[in-house]
C-alpha cells in the first residue's frame, strides 16, 4: 500500500487506458482486474474486432481449416471494459494525460498502457502494392482476403521474403497444392533469425516440398495487367516470374507514428522502456504513468548484455503484459522486472520449429542432438563462450534443458555428452548470420537501439 493512499485510490476509482486491443492489451486488462483494479478501463483498438489470435492466421486459416473470424482469443476473465474498437489512437498529450482518437474524441487516463504492436511492412512501391492480388499478412482481414484468393486456385503464388511468416505462407500454399515461388534476398530462408547453418536446412525443406526457392535475389518490381491485377514480378537477376498472387512478407513496422511529437521515447524501433515496462521519454527519463507491452516495446535484458530487446513473440506479449499490469498497480518496491527468456515457435512443411534465447546474437552453433540431414535436430548458439540461444527442429521436448543453460549463462560449447549426439555435433561451427547492417526480412528479435549502419543520430558531449 502506498504511503499516501494514491495507489488504493487508483485501484478503486482510477482510469486506465489500454491502447492496442490485441493479445498484450487483452492479457494486461485481465491482469489488471485480477489484481483488483476496480476503476474504469478503456480498450482502444484500430481494428473493428475484439482481440484475436494471430499465429493461426498464417497456418490453419491459410490452409482453409479455420476461418479468420474464429480465432478470437479465449477470455480468462471478464474485464468489464469500455471498448473503442475500429478507432485508432492518433496522439498523446503526456502533460494532460490524454489520448487522442481518430474520431476526435479524447480519453483521459491516470495510467496508460501502450500495446499498439506492429504491422506488416508494405510493398514500397505504392502503385504496385495496390494491384489486385498483392497481399500482406498480419491482420484477420489480411488472412481472410489471402485465403479467399488461395481458394480460387491461383496458378502461382509469389512470396517475397522467407522469414517465418513467408515460409509458413509458402508451406500452406504447397499443402494446398498451389505452385509457389519464394524470393529471399539473403542466401537462405530464416537466416535473419537463425543464421545460415540452420537456414540451409530450411532451404532444403522448401525445395523438398516443391517450393521454387530463389535466394540471393530481390524483387525489383511488380507488374499488373490492364485490369489492375498483378501478373508478374521482376527479379534483380533479370528473371521474370508470372504469378497471380503476391504476398509481401518483408517483416514488420512498429506502430509508433501516432506518438510522434508526444515527447515519448518512441520511434521506428519501438518504444523504449525500463525492465518494469515503464516508458522512457525522449530525454531518457522514465515515466511514472505510461507503460508499454508486446511487440512495440523495447526493454533492456540482463541475460543479453542489457541490450534493448524488442520481441515479436506471442509469449513475450503475454508475459510483458502481465508484468506491465502488475507494475501499474504496484509501489516501486513491489514492481517486478520483465526478464522473460525469448521463445518462439513456427510450423512449416510439417516441421515444428522452436527457439529460445536470442539465436541471432550467437556467433557459433553446435548441433547438439539429432541431425540436420534428417531435419530433426537441436542447434545451440554460442556468444562469447556462453550459451545464448537454441533452436529445435522437431525436437521440442529437449528445449527446456537448453533454456536452463541460457538462463544460467552456461559455457559454450556445452561439454557433456547427450543422447543422440552425432558426429556433426562434435564441433561448433560459425552460425553464419548475415552482416547485421544488411537488412533481412526474417528477424523477430531486434537488438539494441540502433543498427550498426545507423549514423543519423550523433552524440555530442557537453563542453565545459
Amino acid at each position, binding site marked *: 500500500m502506498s504511503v499516501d493512499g494514491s495507489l488504493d485510490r487508483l485501484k478503486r476509482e482510477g482510469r486506465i487506458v489500454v491502447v492496442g486491443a490485441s493479445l498484450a492489451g487483452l492479457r494486461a486488462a485481465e491482469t489488471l482486474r485480477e489484481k483488483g483494479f476496480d476503476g474504469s478501463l478503456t480498450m482502444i483498438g484500430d481494428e473493428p474486432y475484439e482481440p484475436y489470435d494471430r499465429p493461426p492466421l498464417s497456418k490453419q486459416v491459410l490452409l482453409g481449416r479455420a476461418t479468420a473470424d474464429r480465432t478470437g482469443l479465449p477470455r480468462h476473465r471478464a474485464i468489464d471494459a469500455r471498448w473503442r474498437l475500429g478507432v485508432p489512437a492518433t496522439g498523446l498529450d503526456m502533460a494532460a494525460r490524454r489520448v487522442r482518437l481518430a474520431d476526435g474524441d479524447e480519453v483521459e487516463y491516470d495510467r496508460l498502457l501502450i500495446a499498439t504492436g506492429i504491422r506488416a511492412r508494405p510493398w514500397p512501391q505504392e502503385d504496385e502494392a495496390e494491384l489486385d492480388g498483392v497481399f500482406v499478412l498480419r491482420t484477420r482481414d489480411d488472412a481472410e482476403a489471402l485465403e479467399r484468393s488461395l481458394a480460387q486456385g491461383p496458378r502461382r503464388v509469389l512470396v517475397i521474403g522467407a522469414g517465418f511468416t513467408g515460409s509458413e505462407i509458402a508451406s500452406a500454399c504447397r499443402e494446398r497444392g498451389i505452385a509457389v515461388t519464394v524470393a529471399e534476398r539473403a542466401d537462405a530462408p530464416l537466416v535473419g533469425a537463425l543464421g545460415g547453418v540452420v537456414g540451409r536446412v530450411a532451404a532444403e525443406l522448401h525445395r523438398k516440398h516443391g517450393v521454387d526457392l530463389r535466394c540471393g535475389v530481390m524483387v525489383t518490381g511488380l507488374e499488373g495487367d490492364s485490369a489492375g491485377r498483378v501478373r508478374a514480378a521482376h527479379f534483380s537477376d533479370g528473371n521474370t516470374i508470372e504469378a497471380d498472387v503476391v504476398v509481401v512478407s518483408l517483416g514488420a513496422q512498429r506502430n509508433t507514428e501516432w506518438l510522434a511529437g508526444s515527447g515519448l521515447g518512441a520511434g521506428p524501433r519501438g518504444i523504449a522502456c525500463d525492465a518494469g515496462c515503464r516508458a522512457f521519454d525522449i530525454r531518457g527519463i522514465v515515466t511514472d504513468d505510461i507503460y508499454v507491452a508486446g511487440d512495440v516495446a523495447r526493454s533492456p535484458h540482463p541475460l543479453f548484455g542489457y541490450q534493448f530487446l524488442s520481441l515479436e513473440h506471442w509469449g513475450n506479449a503475454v508475459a510483458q503484459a502481465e508484468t506491465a499490469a502488475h507494475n501499474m498497480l504496484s509501489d516501486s518496491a513491489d514492481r517486478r522486472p520483465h526478464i522473460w527468456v525469448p521463445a518462439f515457435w513456427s510450423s512449416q512443411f510439417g516441421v515444428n520449429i522452436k527457439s529460445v534465447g536470442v539465436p541471432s546474437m550467437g556467433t557459433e552453433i553446435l548441433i547438439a542432438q539429432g541431425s540436420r540431414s534428417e531435419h530433426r535436430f537441436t542447434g545451440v548458439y554460442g556468444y562469447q563462450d556462453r550459451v545464448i540461444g537454441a533452436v529445435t527442429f522437431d525436437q521440442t521436448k529437449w528445449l527446456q*534443458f537448453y533454456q536452463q543453460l541460457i538462463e544460467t549463462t552456461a559455457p559454450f560449447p556445452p561439454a557433456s555428452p547427450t543422447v543422440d549426439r552425432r558426429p556433426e555435433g562434435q564441433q561448433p561451427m560459425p552460425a553464419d548470420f548475415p552482416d547485421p547492417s544488411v537488412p533481412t526480412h526474417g528477424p523477430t528479435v531486434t537488438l539494441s537501439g540502433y543498427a550498426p549502419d545507423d549514423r543519423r543520430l550523433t552524440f555530442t558531449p557537453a563542453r565545459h
Partner: protein
Amino acid sequence: MTEAILRQIIDYAHRADPYPLYAELRQTPVYHDADGPFVLSRYYDIQSLLHDPRISSDARNLKTPATANPLAAEADEETALPPSFLRLDPPEHDRLRRMTNRPFGPPHSPRRVHEMRGELKDIVSGLIDGIDNPDRIDLVDQFSYPFPVTVICRLLGVPREDEARFHSWADTIAASLDPVPGADTDERAKVSHNARTELGMYLAGLIEERRKKPGDDMLSQLSTAGGPDGVMTTMEVLSTAALLLIAGHETTVNLITNGMLTLLRNPDVLERLRKDPNFAVPVVEELLRFEPPVQLVPQRTTLADIEVRGVTIPKGASLWLVLAAGNRDPDRFEDPDRFDPDRGDIQHLGFGSGIHSCFGAPLARLEAQLALSELARRLENPRLLEDPPPYRQNAVLRGPRHLPIACDGIRP
C-alpha cells in the same frame, strides 16, 4: 534421514500409504546411500531431469549392476524381445515412437482415440451389466482388470474369439510384475516366460496374417503402413505390441482402481461426478497427480556427471525419479495432500514428461474418464468394504490388488 527410507518404500507395509515416506524423502532432494540409486523427489528436479538429454533410458549405459537396483525386476518388461522404445534413447526411440504414433494419434491419425469412445462405452457398460452381486464386488477383478485388456485387444486388432486367450496371457504376465515374496520364484518365472512366449508367437502369427490382409487396426498399420521411416520389422512390432499391452494395461488398471478408491473416500466428489459426467475430466487429472499409477521411474541413468542442488550425480549412476513424491511437492502444489479436482494449476508428473511422456496418455485419460463417470452413475450408493484395501506388492506400479465394494443396486 535414515538409509531405511528406500527399504521402507519397497516394504509392503507402507504400500497403502507411501506418502509420508515421500514427504520424508523430499527433505533430502538428492537422496543417495551406499551403492544404491540416486533418488529425486522434488517436482522441479524431476521435471528438469525428464527433459535433460544427459539422462538415458537405455540400460546399456548403466554402470551399476542391475542387482543394485532393488526395483529393477518390478519395473521391467523383461522379455526376450529387443527393447521397446521405452528403454531406448533417440534416435532409435524417436523413430519407433514416431512409427507407433502414426496409426495412433495426430497428425496422421487424429481421431483414432476419439473414435474408440463408443466402443469403450460399450465395454464399460457390458462389464457393469455383468456385476451379479452388488453386496460384494471386487472392482479390480470384475472391472478394472478386464477393461483395459479388452481395449488393447480391440486397438491391436486381436479377433474377438481370441480375446479370452489374450486375457489369460496378460493376467499371467501382469502377475509376474507383482512378485509375492517367498513364493517359488523359479516356478513363477517359468510360468511367466511361457506366457510371454505363447503371446509372442500368437502375435507373430497375427502380424503375418495382417501383413497379407491388413485391416484398420494398429497391428496391421504397424506392420504394413509406410511412412518416411519405412515399415517396422516383425521383432519391432512385437516389442511395441508387448509394450502397449503391458504399459497400457497395468497402469490403467491402477488409475481406475485408485480413482474409485479415492472417490469413495471423497463422497462429495463422487456425487458431483454422478450428476455431471463432464466432471470426470478434472477428476482424472487430479487423480493422476494425487495417486499416480506409476509411482516412480527407476530406469534412468546419467551419461555425464550431473549436478543437482549442489550434489554431483556421477556418470553411469542409476536414478529413481519419484513422480508420486514430486506430485505432492508443496513447493509446486498448494495443499498437495488434498484431493481437489477444482485446482486450476495441475501440471502433474503422472504421465512423466519429456520424450518418454506416456504414449498412451490420451487413451488412458479417456478410459478412466468413461470408467469412473459410468461407475459413479450406475452404482447405487457405493461404499468401501475394506479401507485400505489389499494392495499389490509392486511399489512402482502401485494399486490395490482387490477393491471390495458394495452397493444397493445397479442403475440401468
